[in-house]
Structure formats: C-alpha cells, structure tokens
C-alpha cells in the first residue's frame, strides 16, 4: 500500500508500516504532501499534525492521526478535528496495521477490483478484461472505465471523473474528459462491441451501459 507520512517523526509507526511491506513516503508538510499524493496515488496519509488542513489538500485520501504517546483524549480530539482514524502508541503493531488497512478499504474509490457484468477492472494488476480477455487500454482509459464501472450504471459527472482520474479540479471548458471517453468508447466498440457502451448525458457526464444479455449470460 502507498502511505504518505506527513510530518511524522521516525519511530514505531513508520517502522511498523515499512516492515509490513508498505511503501511509505515521508514528507514535511501538507503542501509537499499534496504534490506527493498526486504523483504516487497515496491510499492513506498519516500525520502528527492538523488533520483538517491535510484533508483539505488531499481530497479523497483518508487521513489518520498518529499520537506518539497513548492518549484516549488525544485520539478523541483528533477524530473531532476531522481525522478519519486515530492511531496511538498504546496500540499493538497488529492493531496499527489492521486499522490502516481498514482505513484504506473505507476510502472512496478504494475498491481495487470493480465488475460490471463480464467487465472486470483490477487496479492492482493494472488490467481490464471482458469475459476474461484482456482489453488493450491505456492506464488512463482503465482509470476512467474504473470510475464509470464503480458508479454501477449511474451517470458520473465530468468534473468528478476529472478529479478522480487526473487528480485536479477540471477547468471550465476543458474537454480532456470528453476526448478520453471518446477514445475509450471507440476501443470498447472495437474490442467488445454493442454489449458495453458509454452513454453521454449531455451537459452532465457519462455512464457505463452493459447490456442485460451480457450480464445474464455470465
């Protein structure tokens, strides 16, 4: 798992996370964390400082506060001030790791595998398949399809797609999402055909449509 440690002093928490095989990237403050989260797709952030300030910078990345000394009041305060989780020195190594893993699972968009009928998207393996056959999509196209599939057939706003896939706010008038959806749509048409299409909701966004026959034929 990719973990961002923001202003966390070296010690027990970081040792536990790295020894468990997590990729921990240590940064000094929220500004640096924002840049790092964008380049490394951090799944969880831990900090010893103000969780609300960090959350504002990181958007959907869940934030845990680390208290180097065991403190029930400190944990309560951290949660009250916006942290998604509070970890403290009174917790055993296993509890710390499980709490971090649970936090990652609860994060929006965290599902590594999403299915829509015969379509399967596996973020960890970096692949998209239709009835087990691998689709030749770019990483960006897979990410767009992942977001559409995750919505379960509901329309996903273009701004939301841009934020989830590109990691930034979409500037008004920017056609990046449309260009990428068009390419994805063309590839789906070539590789899958009519059973899986992307419908346009004019002025709103896009939704994935998987034909009922394709789903029942599973």
């Amino acid at each position, binding site marked *: 798992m990719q973990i961002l440690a923001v202003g966390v002093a070296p010690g027990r928490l970081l040792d536990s996370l790295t020894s468990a095989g997590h990729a921990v990237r240590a940064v000094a403050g929220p500004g640096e964390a924002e840049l790092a989260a964008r380049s490394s797709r951090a799944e969880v952030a831990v900090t010893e400082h103000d969780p609300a300030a960090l959350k504002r910078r990181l958007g959907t990345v869940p934030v845990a506060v680390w208290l180097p000394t065991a403190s029930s009041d400190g944990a309560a305060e951290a949660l009250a001030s916006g942290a998604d989780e509070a970890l403290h020195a009174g917790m055993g190594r296993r509890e710390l790791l499980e709490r971090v893993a649970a936090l990652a699972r609860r994060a929006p968009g965290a599902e590594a595998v999403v299915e829509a009928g015969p379509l399967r998207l596996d973020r960890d393996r970096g692949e998209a398949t239709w009835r087990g056959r691998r689709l030749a999509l770019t990483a960006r196209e897979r990410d767009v399809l992942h977001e559409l599939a995750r919505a379960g057939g509901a329309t996903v706003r273009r701004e939301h797609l841009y934020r989830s896939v590109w990691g*930034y706010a979409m500037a*008004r008038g920017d056609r990046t999402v449309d260009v990428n959806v068009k390419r994805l749509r063309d590839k789906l048409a070539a590789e899958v055909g009519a059973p899986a299409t992307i419908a346009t909701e004019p002025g709103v966004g896009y939704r994935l449509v998987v034909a009922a026959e394709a789903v029942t034929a599973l």
Partner: protein
Amino acid sequence: MRLALVPRTTAFYDLFAAAGRAAHEAARLTEIRFREVPDQTVAHARVKQLETEGDTITRDIFELLNTQYVTPFDREDIYGLAKAVDDVVDFIDEASDLLDIYKIDAPMDQAIAQCRVLVDATGELERALGSLRNFKGAQEAILAIKRLEDDGDRISRDAIASLFEDEDVSPRTMIRWKDVFEALERAIDACETAAHAVGNIVVKNA
C-alpha cells in the same frame, strides 16, 4: 537603387489581397487544429507555410516601396499596413505552434471560440485588403473587425478567468492554456491594428 517612374500600383493591390488571403487561411487552419486536437487533420507545418508566404509578401511590398517612385498611398501607410498584416499571421502561427510545444491533448471551448472570432476577423481583413483599389466595402469590414475584437476581448477575459475559478486546477493546465489564450488574443488584436491601418488609408484617399 533605381526608382521606377512607371507606376505599378496594381502590384500593391495584388500583394495586399494575397496577404489577406494568407491571413484568413492561416486562421481557418488554426481553428481546425484547435477544434480537432489531439487528432488533428491539419499539421502546424501548413500554418507555418502560410506564415512564410506572408513574410515573402511583406518583403515584396517593401521591395516595391523601395523601387517605385509613385505609390498608390503614402509610403509610411503602406509600410504600416504591410507590417500590421504580417503581425496577424505571425501571432496566428505562434498560437498554432503552442498546441504542439505544450503537447496539448484536448480542446478547450474558450480557445475554439477565440479561433472562430479570429477566422471571422481575418475574413473581414481579407475583404478590407481586397478593397484597396476602390475602398468598396472597406468601412463595413473595418467596423466588423472592431466588433469582433470586442467579442474577442470578452471571450479572452472569460477564458483566463476560467483557469482561476477553482484553486485546484492543475498548474500545467493553467500555464499552457493561459499562454494559448493570450496568443490568440494577440492575433485578434493584431487584426484590429491592421484594420486601423486600412482605415487611415481610406480616410486619406477615398
């Protein structure tokens, strides 16, 4: 250098008409490039070719100025107009080139709107430059360019504002599109400068 005493005024008219056509064609191709990005059917080389043609026409006008004893309008007005039309094509070329330099991979609605204004403005400029023999339709074309430049200003301001509406817009998006919006605005402004130059000639000679 020997000055020719036999006036070749028609050559000036033909050269300005050709310069107008080159500017309009460069704008038309650039609009297609901005609309079709990233799968453009028009390469920047075609716009560059028109810019080179424009340079050649400008040089020809200057050469004619230096060799003709009699010119159809004041020398400084001819010089100013030739330079102004040359600037239009230069700025269009610059904007078109930025699409490749910045590796822009998707259109922006506001840039397409600017390009449409630019196509219309260069169309009117072509009309104004084609009217230098008798000035027929020149005033209408000049007024139309002024109106289009006002539209262009409004679109450019809105375009730049759109990059700053959300503080979380990517710096990459902001840098490249701000430069492109400004380049397109310079091209539209240059049409108005050229229209003023035509207007001066009309006032003195009509």
